[in-house]
């Protein structure tokens, strides 16, 4: 375990000399990344360069070939439950059950989380412009609306760390603006953020760094 004084500034999430493979192909090596409250890292790079893998390594879903990820100075594999109670991950597959309504999806997602915001699921749906779609089953929603249901999950989980894989997929202009305003609010409240996106953010929140995996 690291001593607090060894952490760069007040980094909460720290990844040290990460290396990862897909099959025999090396995706990245010696990758170091630190994240302090109010900071965001945008991971960019061509298709297949390992953006999603990096995000999954940071979540603890994938074990890296070498290196380690620390949350508040503790390796994430050591205290998974403490780390996951402060994490909200939005994967490429949004995690929305098509047979359930938007509201049922959110209620179940909330039950799996320990930290919760003051918002009710109905208010979260209103915030992502799905007012009136609470009781509509997921399979009748469009791809963009399903993505908005996943975004409502972020609003309900009041966690300091958000890891978002392509949050802008399938969203229209208004949806993109909505995500950007959510991200700004999250960072303003001392949240932390790691995201991948192909579209450049029109108005990136202050404190956003870019990590280009293609240059590795």
């Amino acid at each position: 375990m690291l001593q607090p004084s060894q952490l760069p500034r007040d980094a909460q999430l720290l990844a040290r000399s990460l290396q990862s493979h897909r099959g025999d192909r090396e995706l990245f090596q010696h990758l170091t990344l630190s994240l302090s409250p109010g900071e965001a890292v945008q991971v960019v790079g061509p298709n297949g360069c390992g953006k999603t893998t990096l995000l999954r390594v940071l979540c603890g879903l994938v074990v890296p070939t070498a290196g380690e990820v620390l949350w508040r100075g503790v390796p994430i594999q050591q205290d998974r439950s403490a780390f996951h109670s402060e994490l909200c991950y939005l994967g490429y597959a949004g995690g929305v059950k098509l047979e359930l309504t938007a509201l049922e999806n959110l209620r179940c997602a909330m039950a799996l989380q320990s930290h919760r915001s003051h918002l009710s699921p109905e208010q979260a749906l209103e915030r992502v412009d799905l007012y009136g779609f609470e009781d509509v089953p997921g399979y009748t929603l469009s791809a963009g609306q399903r993505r908005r249901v996943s975004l409502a999950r972020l609003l309900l989980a009041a966690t300091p760390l958000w890891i978002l894989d392509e949050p802008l997929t399938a969203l229209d202009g208004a949806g993109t603006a909505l995500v950007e305003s959510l991200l700004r609010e999250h960072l303003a409240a001392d949240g932390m953020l790691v995201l991948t996106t192909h579209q450049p953010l029109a108005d990136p929140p202050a404190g956003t760094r870019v990590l280009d995996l293609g240059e590795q």
Partner: protein
Amino acid sequence: MISRAFLALITRDMQLVFRHTSDAVNPVLFFVIATSLFPLGLSPQPELLRSIAPGILWVNALLATLLALDSLFRTDFDDGTLEQILLSPVPTPILVLAKITAHWLVTGVPLILCAPLLAMLLGLPQAAWGTLLLALLLGTPMLSLVGAIGVALTVGLRRGGALLALLVLPMYVPVLIFGAHAVDAAAAGVPVSGQLLLLAAMFILALTLAPFAAAAALRITVG
């Protein structure tokens, strides 16, 4: 928090099944149809059917469970909710146990409810019905628990069906032997407490260990 997540996951899986009834009806339909084909294929002699009834009922219960097993984690894996389950602060074995419980309620319980009807069809003596139900009550949750390990290992493969059967069926053999033997003994009027106690011991073992094994297997599959 843990019990709320446990119940929420069971409720969710039950809701999903009731909106997708064909998935739930399949195994029990297979159980009924396959069992009722035996008298047609072999011979309708009551003595013959009575003597092979325990074996037929147990083999078909086994295959019916296997048929439904793949659906345990499949949709969750495809739509990304499995990642949410793995990233929940609630310990994964508990959530896995919730999913197995829901799966057993949907696939195991209907088999138990149908069993007396099929026992009657095959002419199993009434004295053995109680043992049959008790053995199924101990055996079918074990089939779901042990099967969950196999599904967790194969859910990442596109065509994992054959591999799943190869992995899981050998582990089902002890359940089959003791389950069928208990019913056989009851039909012959011999005490059956030994077989039932062994089934109960195996059930407790599976209940305590299988959720951990399945959770570890899911981590490997997703990672």
